[in-house]
């Protein structure tokens, strides 16, 4: 995939904590091809937030990056100075966060906020307001010109998220990162936002990195999906490949536990027993071994290799390495 907008190679991120060094992300590899939508799925603590923070380089002060690279539009983001990085933020890389009410500034009108983030442009204030109005119209806000004066709390949750998306796409970035944008919304709103994102993505031609733990949404929206577990990528490939032929036991469990996939009425929903291992003192071998149904002897001490097929479907699992499994 050499037309990739974003290429993450071997990225590791650790945090200094009182108990020791927490290995939040370990040797993560993933690509975001140009003009595509890539989903990242995984439960809490899998490293999704760390991934996003690393890409835009707004990590906490106790974070260290022992190794890896993040190549964006031909440059390694980790090698850029904070100033160079700052120039990319909001311009070439935009981000939409989870809870729009708290991410929008409560004491500034949305018009003011949308004009403020255009600070790089030399256009007149009137022109900037005009652009803001157009963006609001494109995300489906009615009567946008007069609503510029209003404050975030005067909008519903769904509309606030649309405004956040409008802000993020205003500068027509190459990459939009969406951090669980629909988690705080109800199901009907979720569908609307997904359709909106799809439409805008085709219009603008950007790539989207879409983080979520909602499998249905990922299946609907994304071209490719990356499955993360406890700081590692365990499987990746096209959405079709991964969801129809899951190769990693964790992916299988996720799909099985997704309420949407339960066909018959049942009293108890399936869960994945066990917990994420301690990331300060990492266990040997495969990271998923203590929760895996198909655990084998070599999983105990050997880290699985990264195995791929010709269609770009990759998995990190000993079971998949056995001949006969593709």
């Amino acid at each position, binding site marked *: 995939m050499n037309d990739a907008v974003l290429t993450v190679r071997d990225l590791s991120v650790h945090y200094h904590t009182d108990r020791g060094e927490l290995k939040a992300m370990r040797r993560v590899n993933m690509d975001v091809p140009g003009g595509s939508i890539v989903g990242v799925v995984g439960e809490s603590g899998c490293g999704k937030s760390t991934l996003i923070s690393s890409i*835009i380089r*707004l990590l906490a002060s106790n974070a260290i990056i022992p190794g890896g690279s993040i190549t964006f539009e031909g440059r390694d983001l980790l090698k850029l100075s904070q100033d160079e990085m*700052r*120039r*990319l*933020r*909001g*311009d070439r890389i*935009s*981000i939409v*966060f989870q*809870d729009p009410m*708290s*991410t*929008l*500034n*409560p*004491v500034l009108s949305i018009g003011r906020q949308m004009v*403020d*983030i255009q*600070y*790089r442009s030399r256009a007149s204030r009137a022109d900037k307001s005009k652009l803001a109005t157009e963006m609001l119209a494109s995300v489906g806000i009615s009567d946008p010109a007069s609503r510029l004066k209003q*404050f975030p*709390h*005067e909008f519903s949750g769904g509309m606030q998220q649309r405004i956040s998306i409008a*802000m993020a796409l205003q500068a027509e970035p190459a990459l939009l990162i969406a951090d669980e944008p629909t988690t705080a919304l109800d199901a009907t709103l979720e569908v609307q936002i997904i359709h909106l994102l799809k439409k805008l993505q085709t219009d603008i031609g950007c790539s989207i990195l879409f983080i979520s733990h909602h499998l249905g949404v990922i299946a609907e929206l994304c071209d490719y999906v990356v499955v993360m577990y406890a700081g590692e990528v365990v499987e990746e490939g096209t959405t079709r490949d991964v969801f129809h032929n899951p190769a990693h036991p964790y992916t299988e469990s996720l799909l099985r536990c997704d309420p949407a996939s339960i066909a018959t009425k049942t009293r108890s929903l399936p869960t994945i027993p066990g917990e994420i291992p301690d990331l300060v003192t990492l266990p040997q071998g495969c990271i998923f071994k203590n929760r895996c149904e198909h655990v084998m002897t070599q999983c105990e001490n050997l880290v699985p290799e990264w195995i791929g097929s010709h269609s770009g479907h990759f998995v990190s699992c000993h079971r998949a390495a056995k001949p006969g499994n593709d």
Partner: protein
Amino acid sequence: MLFYLIKRLALGVVIVMLAVTLLFCMIHLVPGDPARILLGPRATPELIASMSARMGLDQPLPIQILLFFGNLFRGDLGMDVITNRPVADMVFGQLPYTLWLIFTAIGFAMVIGIPLGCYSALHRNTLIDRVTGVLSVACITVPAFVVALYSLLIFAVTLNWFPAVGAGEKGDFWDQARHIVLPALAIGLSWIGYLARLVRASMLEVMSENHIRTARAYGLPERVVVFRYALKLAVLPTVTVIGVGMGFLLSAALFTEIVFARPGIGKLIFDSITTRNYPVVMGSVLVSTVLFVISTTLSDLVNAWLDPRIRSSL
């Protein structure tokens, strides 16, 4: 919003009326003839008679209260016992000095305290932050009159950098400025500590909020994030605090005026007590209280105005 305005103003008025009533009750609860007590040892029979008539002491109590309020509304605070001038003239003649002192003190405190608090928040746990933290607490608790005494001792008496007495020549701006420096600093010192702590806590809270993260995620320069977004929000509490702090400021001003022999309401009250000029005392205390209530009411209203979330919910 308008409804809240009216409600809050009404509350302010009610409180003032209750305060006045309280003063009235205090005067009457003291055993003895209220007129005689109010006039003090200087009471001559004629004065007592005219005061009694003015206060309507032979009338039933509700009428007396009404008379009291009636006089107040006409701006009549009584007559000075010694010089027979209207108390209102004396009080309002001295009030500007006190107001100048208080506002200069607030000015000092804001100019030094707000940047200090902002710096402490941005450089948490550095030496300056910790030292500022301890000094702030120290400044807040040391009584204002002790600070006044020491600044008088060190800077006026010993070093002779600033004058020790009075407010300076009327009409001469620089002379008056020289005279106001030490008293204003004496009052302002504790406020510097208070504001620094307040701004620090407020900044830390605002900087950790999500919309600040968003501003950074859009690449806004740190300067803009801190000063245009965060600081503006963080400074809001200082406005309310000044309103409520007016009580403390008036008390501190009183001591400072006495220590530096400056004209003002505080000195007026003190001198009047020592000369047993009680109507002046009562009038001055009344005016100070009204001032305090006005300032708390104003700060509540300003606070409601500044935060759009509150403003539109009212």
